[in-house]
């Protein structure tokens, strides 16, 4: 780790002087203040009144090694714990801190015995590290014959070593040379000093004692209460046992590797400490309101009227087709809106109260938006603060220990964690999921919330905010919140990152995290709707973004992207105290929160690690593909205990996957109080729709192919069908999915324009190609003073330029694939940018892989990409039937000034469309995936504001989510997409809140000609096929319908599989 790391040596040096009344945390803190100078640290401790830091006492039972302040390791290594304990006066011993506790644990083969010895000496003095938990009877089983044990005899316990342990040297002078048997079993035996082994303790005791004793978290002493006079095998021996808990556990926070944590807790729901408490007969004086038992209860309602559809949903979600990967159809296996509503339920939200937004919000909220504001404010409030601070968190229970010091320990019934500090409801989630369907204005509702309650993280607390080592706590699965109450978080790898942060968190305002594409929109919406001066806004994005906490903390609202979040979390060079993770946010809002749906993704881990008082998820699709998606959201929101994978998995995920409806019911009951979801169809109290949008007229325009197009289409179809039939014959349809999709792709493109199929590899005039050639020929001439030999030969350059002119594809010499984002080196070699940069050791310069010339990154030229068309499309321009119809439609709209969006899934088709648009003087802008964020924003602004621009050419998938294009009132969807939902989403960009005009949506489908239809029908009669007719697009319509049926109907995996085959056959019949 870094240089700032305090070494054990420094720690023990300071410890040896200041003594044990200062905790390790104090010493760490002092060392940090003293810049790791031990002497200075000691002075700081002694010179500062009240230096002692009252620590949060908390411990996870998963901490796997534990210590009391014990003797130096040198003694332990040879002597065993008990020997040392006997030979040293206690006070001396307490002043010395062992630097190598792990050794202690590992080198005590007779831990049972030594524990007992030690207890004998140490249990009495007040201030001892060991707290008396309780005492109970235990029925031991005799494993010996003929030995005797009398009531009152002290017994010692022997715990098996961890398997794989090498045995330390046997304890000399103790235990009569007894050596712990090298056994990996979990049997805990007991014996007396006089007779040796007597028996074993019951398994249930052993099971929970073993891990705890091994980790030195508890120790046990006992004596015999009753035993038969002459022992036989399996006789019962009544023991009385007392259990002590190591208080140091509550003070020290051990970093636990993820693996350990995963093995011991994450995947298991067995927790030794609560079990031990139960065995000891300890009853919580305050019970958890919410226990695992509740979750198993059979009382939960089983029947539902929508039973069947839920079941169908279940099946649908479950079915993943293993044979298809990464095909375009597969991408659309997302859940339909109807299914989503079935799963998460649409809340009966019409009864919610409304709340007026603050005056600084400069727009009217609709009633349902005011309801959302009220709901969000309520959720953020949680309970009144005082009440919250004094109410026990429902997942925790409180126990009185039997210790005379009247100690109270709190146990988490779900995670098994223990703490001595009161776990209040303050640590509970404050926030929730705003899951209104797309287009209802989640952004504006959130802005209203921001304005209604601006604040700073942690400031409402009476405690000072500065608290060192918060992050250590996080490692142990606890997060501190404003009032020093341990707050629970789940454990992640990558948390060691947080170890580096040794300073306090700065309190900050609200943080909004959104996809990069929405960054501009958030900023624009806030600037538009918020009264100037009422909040300060800062966009945390870009390479040059400041890293220091101050800048971030100064602003009321910070907007950033998931990318920045993730990179700051996983950044290797994170300075201490920097970036988003150095701040305790007042509020964190995840926009498009389904982005974090996969819980193991870096994005999800990073988002969950943010420290915040209030947390919100905004998403129109809380579940996208899998129920598991919800888990990530709940974990981020700190909805306990569902942030524990073990519990989620056991009670929700597994039952759900096994078809047990209770899993789903449980999710619904979890979500009900924390999620608000309305759709466009939701109604208000009076039963009126909450959102009245101008009507949208959806129309399908059937276009007929021209003769020439039809010939081309037929030829292409026949060729494709031959190939397809081969696959069918071989019974390998599903294995050749990609090839089949490629065939289909060509046919579908042909319906847009035959040029699209003729594309690939071609020409366009590069006005700058000659310039390029000149530059190469001059080459490094100018730069390096006339080194002609550095420049590539004239002939070679000529060749390269010709290649580029011809648009020859060529392949990258490194990946051997067609160039992707090709660059030209000064030596005129063409490579993919990625490939070239990957071959360099550093990012700024390296050798040309082809000729070994040294080149620098600045000298690279982006290779001109040739036009994608083989023929000169300008010169040979022909309108396709779709284009003719489209132009006609646009011409009709021109006089009204009404704006339109033209969607296609192929940017090449957008290329083509530009030609007639330019010729017919239709002013347009274009938005596709190649644009940078700034360019996108510019295009959207231009389209929305410039009344001259009538058309936006847009690739179907480029816009991403959430883009608001209500300036347009017409949408032309030029080609059908497999899943109607994607089309719907595109169209939603104009038919949403803010739209004032009637909306017309026109979908283009190429229709077979009458003759063709007639032939098909004839064929249908002969062959008995009736469904498949017409062009590929018409058949796609049928597939779309089928897909809808598949989603809502209950099809088994096998059925889905064969349905896919049917689907494909349908397209080629």
């Amino acid at each position, binding site marked *: 780790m870094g240089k700032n790391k305090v070494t054990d040596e420094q720690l023990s040096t300071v410890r040896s002087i200041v003594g044990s009344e200062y905790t390790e945390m104090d010493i760490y803190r002092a060392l940090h203040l003293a810049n790791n100078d031990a002497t200075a640290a000691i002075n700081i401790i002694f010179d500062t009144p009240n230096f002692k830091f009252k620590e949060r006492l908390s411990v996870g039972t998963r901490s796997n090694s534990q210590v009391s302040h014990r003797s130096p390791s040198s003694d332990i290594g040879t002597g065993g714990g008990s020997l040392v304990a006997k030979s040293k006066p206690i006070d001396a011993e307490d002043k010395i801190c062992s630097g190598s506790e792990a050794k202690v644990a590992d080198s005590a083969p007779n831990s049972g015995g030594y524990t007992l010895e030690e207890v004998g000496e140490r249990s009495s003095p007040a201030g001892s590290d060991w707290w008396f938990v309780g005492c109970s009877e235990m029925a031991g089983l005799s494993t010996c014959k003929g030995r005797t044990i009398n009531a009152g005899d002290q017994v010692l316990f022997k715990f098996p070593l961890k398997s794989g342990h090498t045995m330390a040297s046997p304890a000399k002078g103790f235990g009569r040379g007894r050596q712990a048997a090298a056994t990996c079993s979990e049997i805990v035996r007991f014996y007396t000093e006089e007779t040796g082994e007597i028996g074993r303790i019951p398994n249930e005791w052993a099971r929970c004692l073993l891990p705890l004793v091994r980790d030195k978290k508890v120790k046990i002493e006992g004596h015999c209460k009753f035993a038969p006079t002459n022992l036989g095998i399996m006789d019962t021996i009544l023991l009385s046992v007392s259990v002590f808990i190591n208080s140091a556990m509550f003070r020290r926070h051990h970093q636990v590797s993820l693996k350990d944590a995963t093995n011991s807790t994450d995947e298991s729901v067995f927790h030794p400490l609560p079990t031990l408490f139960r065995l000891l007969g300890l009853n919580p004086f305050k019970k958890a309101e919410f226990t695992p038992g509740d979750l198993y209860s059979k009382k939960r309602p089983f029947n539902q009227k929508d039973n069947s559809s839920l079941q169908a949903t279940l099946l649908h979600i479950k079915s993943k087709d293993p044979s298809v990967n990464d095909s375009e159809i597969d991408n659309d296996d997302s859940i339909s809106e109807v299914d989503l509503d079935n799963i998460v339920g649409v809340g009966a939200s019409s009864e919610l109260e409304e709340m007026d937004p603050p005056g600084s919000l400069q727009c009217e909220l609709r009633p349902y938006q005011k309801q959302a504001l009220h709901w969000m404010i309520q959720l953020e409030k949680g309970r009144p603060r005082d009440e919250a601070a004094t109410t026990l968190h429902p997942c925790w229970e409180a126990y009185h220990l039997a210790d005379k010091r009247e100690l109270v320990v709190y146990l988490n019934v779900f995670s098994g964690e223990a703490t001595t500090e009161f776990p209040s409801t303050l640590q509970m989630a404050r926030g929730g999921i705003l899951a209104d369907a797309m287009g209802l204005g989640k952004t504006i509702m959130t802005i209203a919330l921001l304005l209604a309650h601006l604040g700073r993280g942690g400031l409402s607390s009476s405690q000072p905010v500065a608290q060192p080592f918060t992050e250590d706590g996080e490692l142990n699965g606890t997060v501190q919140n404003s009032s020093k109450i341990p707050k629970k978080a789940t454990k992640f790898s990558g948390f060691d990152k947080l170890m580096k942060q040794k300073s306090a968190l700065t309190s900050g305002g609200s943080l909004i995290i959104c996809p990069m594409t929405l960054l501009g929109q958030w900023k624009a919406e806030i600037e538009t709707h918020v009264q100037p001066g009422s909040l300060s806004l800062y966009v945390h994005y870009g390479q040059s973004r400041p890293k220091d906490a101050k800048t971030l903390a100064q602003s009321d609202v910070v907007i950033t992207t998931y990318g920045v979040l993730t990179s700051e979390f996983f950044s290797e060079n994170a300075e201490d105290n920097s970036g988003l993770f150095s701040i305790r946010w007042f509020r964190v809002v995840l926009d498009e929160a389904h982005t974090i749906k996969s819980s193991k993704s870096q994005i999800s881990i990073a988002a969950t690690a943010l420290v915040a008082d209030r947390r919100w998820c905004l998403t129109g699709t809380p579940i996208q593909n899998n129920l598991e998606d919800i888990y990530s959201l709940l974990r981020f929101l700190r909805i306990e205990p569902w942030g524990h994978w073990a519990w989620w998995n056991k009670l929700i995920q597994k039952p759900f996957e096994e078809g047990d409806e209770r899993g789903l019911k449980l999710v619904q009951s979890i979500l009900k109080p924390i999620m608000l979801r309305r759709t466009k169809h939701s109604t208000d109290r009076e039963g009126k729709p909450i959102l009245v949008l101008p009507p949208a007229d959806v129309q399908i325009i059937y276009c007929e192919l021209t003769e020439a197009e039809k010939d081309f289409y037929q030829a292409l179809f026949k060729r494709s069908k031959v190939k397809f039939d081969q696959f069918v014959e071989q019974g390998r349809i599903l294995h050749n999915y990609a090839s089949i999709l490629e065939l289909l792709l060509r046919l579908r493109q042909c319906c847009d324009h035959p040029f699209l199929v003729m594309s690939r590899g071609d020409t366009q005039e590069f006005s700058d190609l000659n310039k390029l050639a000149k530059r190469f020929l001059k080459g490094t001439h100018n730069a390096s003073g006339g080194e002609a030999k550095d420049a590539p030969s004239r002939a070679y350059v000529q060749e390269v330029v010709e290649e580029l002119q011809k648009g020859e594809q060529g392949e990258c*010499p*490194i*990946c*051997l694939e067609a160039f992707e984002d090709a660059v030209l080196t000064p030596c005129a070699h063409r490579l993919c940018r990625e*490939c070239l940069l990957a071959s360099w050791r550093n990012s700024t310069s390296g050798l040309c*892989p082809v000729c070994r010339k040294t080149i620098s990154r600045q000298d690279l030229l982006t290779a001109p990409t040739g036009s994608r068309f083989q023929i000169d499309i300008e010169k040979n321009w022909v309108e396709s039937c779709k284009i003719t119809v489209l132009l006609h439609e646009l011409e009709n709209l021109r006089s009204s000034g009404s704006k339109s969006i033209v969607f296609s899934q192929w940017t090449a088709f957008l290329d083509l469309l530009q030609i007639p648009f330019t010729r017919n003087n239709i002013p347009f802008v274009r938005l596709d995936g190649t644009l940078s964020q700034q360019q996108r924003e510019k295009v959207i602004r231009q389209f929305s504001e410039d009344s001259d621009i009538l058309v936006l050419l847009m690739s179907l998938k480029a816009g991403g989510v959430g883009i608001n294009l209500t300036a347009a009132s017409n949408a032309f969807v030029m080609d059908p997409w497999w899943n109607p939902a994607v089309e719907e989403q595109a169209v939603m960009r104009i038919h949403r809140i803010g739209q004032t005009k009637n909306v017309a949506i026109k979908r283009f489908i190429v229709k077979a000609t009458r003759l063709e239809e007639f032939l098909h029908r004839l064929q249908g009669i002969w062959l008995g096929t009736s469904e498949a007719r017409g062009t590929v697009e018409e058949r796609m319509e049928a597939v779309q319908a089928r897909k809808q049926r598949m989603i809502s109907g209950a099809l088994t995996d096998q059925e889905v599989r064969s349905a896919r085959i049917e689907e494909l056959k349908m397209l080629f019949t």
Partner: protein
Amino acid sequence: MANSNLPRRIIKETQRLLSEPAPGISASPSEDNMRYFNVMILGPTQSPYEGGVFKLELFLPEEYPMAAPKLGRICLDILKDKWSPALQIRTVLLSIQALLSAPNPDDPLSENIAKHWKSNEAEAVETAKEWTRLYASGA
């Protein structure tokens, strides 16, 4: 294991090696590990190694093509510091073939043979022919 996630580049190279083999060179991937190639190079005509079949083992490390293939003990700069990702298995094997045509005694594997070659090339060539016949006759 070894064959899953085989980069496209390796697959492509393999396909091309098999479909359009370089004259006098055969390279085929092992069935259980596609990164492991059995290579045979025919001794170039008019070289002392003519008539010999030289078997080699070639292994593509994880970092390939950013790192050179592993190829036993052959002194060839492109297998070391002069490796470039624009080189391929084919180019490497062609280079080895060329090396057989024109041995480079200034960068030898065996000092003794290099000395011999420099002092009495005719005799060294004879030895090479003899050894080729004895050890690389393809039997």
